[in-house]
């Protein structure tokens, strides 16, 4: 471009143009710059038209070409800048509307079932395919259901006020010390219709009370799940088959069980059932105290006196029963160091140990 015919101020304006254009942050600024350089009045372009008009005839051609070239240059540059800014605006608008996926999204609130409920529900689910339903009984029980009906002798130490909570105004009532009174309740209800029903099988989960001070391994209230099956010709092999299935369902297909003779007044024969330590696999660890086995539950064949107490003929009918401490198993599988954590209800514990299932 030949600018020598134009005055120095135009030359300077052109020299400054690129800088001004670069400094335009938005479309308004571009429009203002356009006005200043190419506007109808007072712009550099208007000035150049005046200069052209005033120029000697022989210069007009050359000067006109130079002015047009300059105006075209400015116009093109302004257009380019304008579309660049428009594109930037579109981009920003799109950015502003889009959600940065790395930001925290609005999560729906999340609570949790208590870990003890989860374990109980798991057991209910494990026994459901075998035809077991849930039975319930009150926590404030009668001595007859809690002890008499379960063949627990009148002078058994567990009946003492050192072990069992009794009600002041109702001396024959107590807080059940196990879920076994549900056995008595169900059997009594079953007795008149046992022939039609052909027996019964149920789980009785619930809270029980014993007079223990609160410490890392004891609580005056804890949970048990009782199980019972009554039918014809029921033997120890049925108990073993059932518990073997349940423990494998709970701890996995490789879980092994061990049945040891033991004693509970309401079963005969009686046994305790150990599972191969789910933590060390039997090698011996802190949880199983080196034995490789952990006690899971007590069980046995229903004592004929229990059936008789409920009015069921023990020559025709037989059955088995088992009961397990939920906290014990929960502590074992989760390695929770202190029983009290289950009753403190700290949301951090509940969130980590509970679930939505």
């Amino acid at each position, binding site marked *: 471009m030949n600018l020598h015919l134009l005055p120095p101020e135009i030359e300077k304006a052109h020299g400054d143009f690129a800088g001004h254009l670069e400094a335009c942050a938005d479309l308004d600024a571009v429009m203002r710059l356009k006005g200043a350089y190419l506007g109808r009045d007072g712009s550099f372009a208007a000035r150049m038209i005046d200069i052209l008009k005033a120029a000697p005839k022989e210069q007009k051609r050359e000067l006109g070409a130079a002015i047009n070239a300059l105006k075209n240059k400015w116009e093109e540059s302004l257009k380019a800048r304008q579309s660049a800014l428009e594109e930037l605006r579109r981009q920003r608008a799109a950015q502003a509307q889009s959600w940065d996926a790395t930001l925290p999204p*609005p*999560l729906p609130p999340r*609570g949790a079932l208590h870990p003890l409920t989860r374990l109980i529900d798991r057991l209910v689910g494990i026994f459901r395919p075998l035809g077991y339903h849930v039975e319930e009984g009150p*926590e404030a029980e009668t001595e007859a259901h809690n002890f008499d009906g379960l063949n627990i002798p009148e002078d058994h130490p567990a009946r003492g006020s050192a072990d069992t909570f*009794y009600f002041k105004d109702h001396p024959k009532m107590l807080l059940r010390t196990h879920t076994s009174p549900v056995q008595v309740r169900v059997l009594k209800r079953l007795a008149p219709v046992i022939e039609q029903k*052909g027996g019964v099988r149920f789980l009785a989960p619930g*809270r029980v009370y014993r007079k223990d001070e609160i410490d890392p391994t004891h609580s005056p209230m804890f949970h048990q799940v009782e199980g019972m099956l009554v039918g014809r010709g029921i033997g*120890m092999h*049925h108990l073993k088959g059932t518990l073997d299935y349940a423990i494998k369902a709970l701890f996995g297909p490789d879980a092994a069980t061990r049945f040891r003779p033991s004693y509970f007044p309401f079963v005969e024969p009686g046994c305790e059932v150990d599972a191969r330590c789910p933590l060390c696999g039997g090698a011996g660890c802190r949880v199983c105290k080196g034995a490789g086995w952990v006690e899971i539950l007590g069980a046995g064949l229903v004592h004929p006196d229990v059936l008789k107490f409920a009015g069921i003929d023990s020559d025709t009918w037989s059955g088995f029963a088992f009961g397990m401490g939920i906290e014990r198993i929960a502590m074992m599988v989760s390695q929770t160091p202190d029983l009290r954590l289950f009753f403190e209800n700290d949301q951090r514990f509940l969130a980590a140990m509970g679930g939505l299932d």
Partner: protein
Amino acid sequence: MRIELGALQSEIPAIAGMELKTLCERLAMIGFPVDAVETQNGVTVLEVDVTANRGDALSHRGLARDLAAAMGAPLAPLPSVPSAEGEALLPVRLEADACPIYATAMLKIDNSRANQTPESAAAFLAAMGSNAKGMAAVDASNELLHRYGHPTHAFDADKIKGGVCVRWAKKGETLLTLDGVNRVLDTKDMVIADDSGPIALAGVIGGDSTKVVESTKRVFLESAYFDPRTVRAAARRHGVQTDASSRFGRGADIAFARAARDIYADRLVSWAGAELLASWTIGQCKQRDMEPPGAFLSKKILDRIAGEPIQLDEAKSILISLGCLVESNDDELIVRPPSWRHDLRIAEDYSEEILRIRGYDKIGATLPPMTGAPEPQPLSYQQRRVLSRRLTQLGFYQTVTLGFTSPDIDAKYADTPPEGRTLVNPLGIEYSVMRASILPSLFDAAEVNLRHGAKDVRLFEIAPVYESSLDGPDETSALAMVWAGTIGGEDPLTPARSVIVADLIAVARDLGFTGDADIIEPGQGLFGLEIPLSAFSGIEEVIPAFKPFSRYPMATRDISLLVPLNLSYGVLEASVRSALGSAPLLSVKCVDVFKDNKLTAEGKQAWLVRMRFQSFDRTLTGGEVESWVQAAITAAKQHGGVLRG
């Protein structure tokens, strides 16, 4: 029970070479799990768990007896000691039938000999957790108890006034026992008495007045059999459990009373150079106690319990190895227990013995056949499951709190007096009443969570609550919920705000509760609501009946009303509904409430009320919808409501 390995081996030599772990397994598999093993200075002690029915196994000999049966190995012979029944040197009378036999002996002690107990016996006692006293009469009794399981006692014969009588205590009699307690006796207590009164509580604890001391010159030994019930009752009545009472209380071996006396006397002779003056026995092992009626164990019952056929010959030889007397018929055994077993009574008891000695691991495993139809889960269980799951989805954490409360807290929440729900023997006053409401426990838990820095605390529990009634504590189930703190503010889209009453009402409505939501506000931004489970509708088990819905367009109209500040929305809505009785009104609800300082100062507020109309059979016209809107505005006017400009 503590078992010293060497002493056990000397009762059953076959285990001498057995690895300790194998022995522990073996014991566990016959019903005696080993809780702990400790070895100190070459002495190994097993902590063996013995069930309450097996008093006979509370000794080295007793445990060895079961091991011997299980292993088919012989027991070591009992020490061969001289036994001669002689003249009574002191008159002894048995007046209580709870003591059928009383074997005794009189010995002269050389009281100049200090430390009469041999080192080996002292070490054995140390392993049992007790210190040897150095007096043979005391230490030998203790040693015999742990080794053979039969409790014995020695009296200072020169302190006995006149003769000895085993009788029931008389009203008002007292006895200063060896533990220094002066006990007022009950007429159901069996005592050993001399002419001055009781000198021992039979089978439980000796008396102070006749105790053997270092200067004792003559001892009067006691090796008797005391009825288990009587001993248990006395021990419980007097709150004293001793090694003797725990063994007599579970049933001692009546046939061993004399032998124990003989071994005891022999210990005193060989340990301390005592001189046996005479041994004599009052009473006898009665026929009844030696041979209770036999139990019939049929092959049918045994096979049913075992789950497989078991030959009666095998069963018989196992029972004989355990000391039972067994006669056989064609298809049954008639079994009598040995004198030391008090837990064998019925066929099932003997079946257990047979399976136990064969090994429970030999029993097969099979699922019982299905009989009858499975029963459905009870509605209460399903209801709890549905409510719990919904609440966890709404962000609530399920808690487990204790069912007890204090009388003070109870008074704030209960409708019935606490007496009928109060425990006789609580852990403390704060745990003495069965709670009428779960809420106080949940408020406590919520406060603890807030203190620990939780921002949004949502807790619930479904548990029993109690009311007092004439028949006893009346137990029902309730759902309690507590919400406290701040909601939101933890992501860019959810602004933070404090929890308010409405939040908990919304949860109650979401759960299907339609009654009055009586929100409890104990302060500190805590909100609680407790609802009896009976207030929730049942669980729909199948798909409910089809309800038709309109396919014509819906008309939605909002009206903004200026209403008095004290007007209840429910009242207005009821009026609007009533005014629009004939209109196809789908819904009416207040979707916004506006209150600012200016309106409040005028005693006003603004409600945006949204109405939706829809017909089942046609498209509604603008005119008719407008007429219904006008009707609604007219209804609002009755309550001071005007259309907001």
